[in-house]
């Protein structure tokens, strides 16, 4: 019912101002309209960015902690993988509606939902990243007198950074896409411009909103990649 409600809200926004009137009337791709109305997309873009950064941030903190815990308590790996995978299979629109009775409408259910989707991706990469640390590193670290925690944070986690951040990149890209559906939970973001009936048929709008989602995903991916290079200078060291 809420979906119907959202879709029914027809913005006067489309034909309000600017652009080639006949092109806009035909729901066409109108560069002049885009030029005149681009400023209306900045707020949704920033809202979208906010949703992604906050939900991935929270999601990463939880999944990373669970990964470290399961690395130490191996028996936790199977159940945690099962639970996070099961959560990942819930359709996103359903997820955003399901969370509303608990969290109301707005950013809260959106962020919680998005954070849930990041779990399986990040958790698995943390676990495999730590498992792939060569045995001799672990042996050398212990043999020189590191405690389990020292070994984890001085050797194992740094060596797993490439795989952990590879997971983070997938999580970011996925979340940027999924965040478009956060509008169903009543949150802001570019999704608002994509799920309203009168807007989704308007090509100019779809190109701008959709294009911004894609560009945002690409920009955030580059940001994580840059962060990874910053954290792993040793991977770029070439034989002298």
């Amino acid at each position, binding site marked *: 019912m809420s979906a119907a409600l959202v879709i029914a809200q027809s913005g006067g926004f489309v034909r309000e101002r600017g652009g080639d009137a006949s092109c806009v009337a035909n729901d066409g791709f109108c560069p002049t309209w885009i030029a005149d109305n681009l400023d209306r997309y900045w707020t949704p873009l920033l809202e979208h960015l906010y949703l992604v950064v906050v939900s991935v941030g929270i999601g990463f903190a939880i999944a990373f902690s669970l990964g470290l815990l399961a690395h130490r308590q191996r028996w936790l790996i199977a159940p945690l993988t099962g639970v996070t995978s099961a959560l990942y299979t819930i359709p996103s629109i359903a997820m955003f509606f399901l969370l509303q009775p608990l969290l109301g409408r707005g950013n809260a259910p959106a962020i919680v939902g998005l954070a849930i989707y990041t779990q399986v991706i990040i958790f698995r990469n943390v676990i495999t990243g730590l498992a792939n640390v060569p045995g001799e590193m672990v042996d*050398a670290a212990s043999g020189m007198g590191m405690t389990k925690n020292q070994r984890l944070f001085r050797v194992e986690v740094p060596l797993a950074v490439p795989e952990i951040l590879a997971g983070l990149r997938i999580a970011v890209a996925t979340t940027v896409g999924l965040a478009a559906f956060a509008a169903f939970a009543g949150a802001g973001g570019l999704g608002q411009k994509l799920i309203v009936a009168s807007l989704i048929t308007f090509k100019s709008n779809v190109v701008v909103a959709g294009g911004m989602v894609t560009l945002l995903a690409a920009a955030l991916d580059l940001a994580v990649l840059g962060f990874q290079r910053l954290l792993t200078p040793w991977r770029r060291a070439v034989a002298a």
Partner: protein
Amino acid sequence: MGESSGRSSAETIEFRDVTKQYPGGSEPAVDGLSLEVPAGEICVLVGPSGCGKTTAMRMVNRMIDMTSGDILLGGRSVRDRKPEELRREIGYVIQQIGLFPHRTIADNISTVPSLLGWSKARMSERADELLELVGLPREMRDRYPSQLSGGQRQRVGVARALAVDPPVMLMDEPFGAIDPINRERLQNEFLRLQAELRKTIVFVTHDIDEAIKMGDRIAVMQVGGKLAQFAPPAELLMAPASPFVEDFVGADRALKRLALQRVRDIDLWTVATCRTGEPTAGVRERTAEADLDIALLVDEHQRPVGWLSERGLTGERIRSELRSPADPVVDLDDILRDALSDLLASESMYGPVVGAQGEVVGVLSMQVISQAVGSAPSEVPGATELAASEHVNGAGDATGPDEE
């Protein structure tokens, strides 16, 4: 500077009836091992795979906990120590070296110092000191392990193990991953280092030749974790305690013994030397008294020129054209095995031995060598003594920066 430049004294390592039984294992991995490694010596644990040598070594720093028995370091049981604290006092070198790829060479070397909370300045100073000790240029300190060759990484591994100057070191096939040419070189370098540092070392290998070369004492272990023999290399080769040991040291054990002695360690034959133009009468007399019945023609610096032929002694005076080449010329510092090889290569039964200035000091013959092979083990020096004499004589392999 305290312990960063001073040398902590080595400690004895004593295995007392040490047994390791893995749960579910039919026989113990190590069975009642008792042996004592005197302070400052290298004890090599050698044996076929599955003999428990690595398990025995890893029980010293409690990477594996023993089932029964005890291991004492300097008289103190390892059981009474917290494993992490114990390990920080024991140098640890493994076959794969296990340098941390995400840390620079200096940071790798500083692993244990940083665990012990040393100051940055002190760690940095110690890292420079250790790079110099293992023969690596100081510029290496800011490189990453992936930028170094295998041999350089191995040296860093040793430097890292020596960082806090531990009295005891454990080395598990430390040269196992190095190609044969560089292995030989790194072994020699390590022996020279050890001659200086005098750590108590437990060294694991499956290679009997490496064991003979590196060990002051060798513990041969056999499958089932039993100690087959514990003896200095020469004794092991002279008097194997069982058919297993005899088989393990190999059919060429007499030849292997030759690698343990230098020409200077054995009694050489005397020889009469003569110069061109000298009256033959005196030379004939001296030749009769010498061990070798042929006279050696030498130049004014007593350097060998050639063997005088029989006809050369018949005339009035010695004539230089009546000689045959004095090949091979053996150096006093040569290892007996190499000297024998030279004799065989020249199809000669004997050769003149020269000292540091090239002057003749005697003659090495096949007979002398075979007597040396039969000599008592006590006359044969240990690995570190051999390396130390090499160091003093400067006759060792080059210590150039690197290879590959």
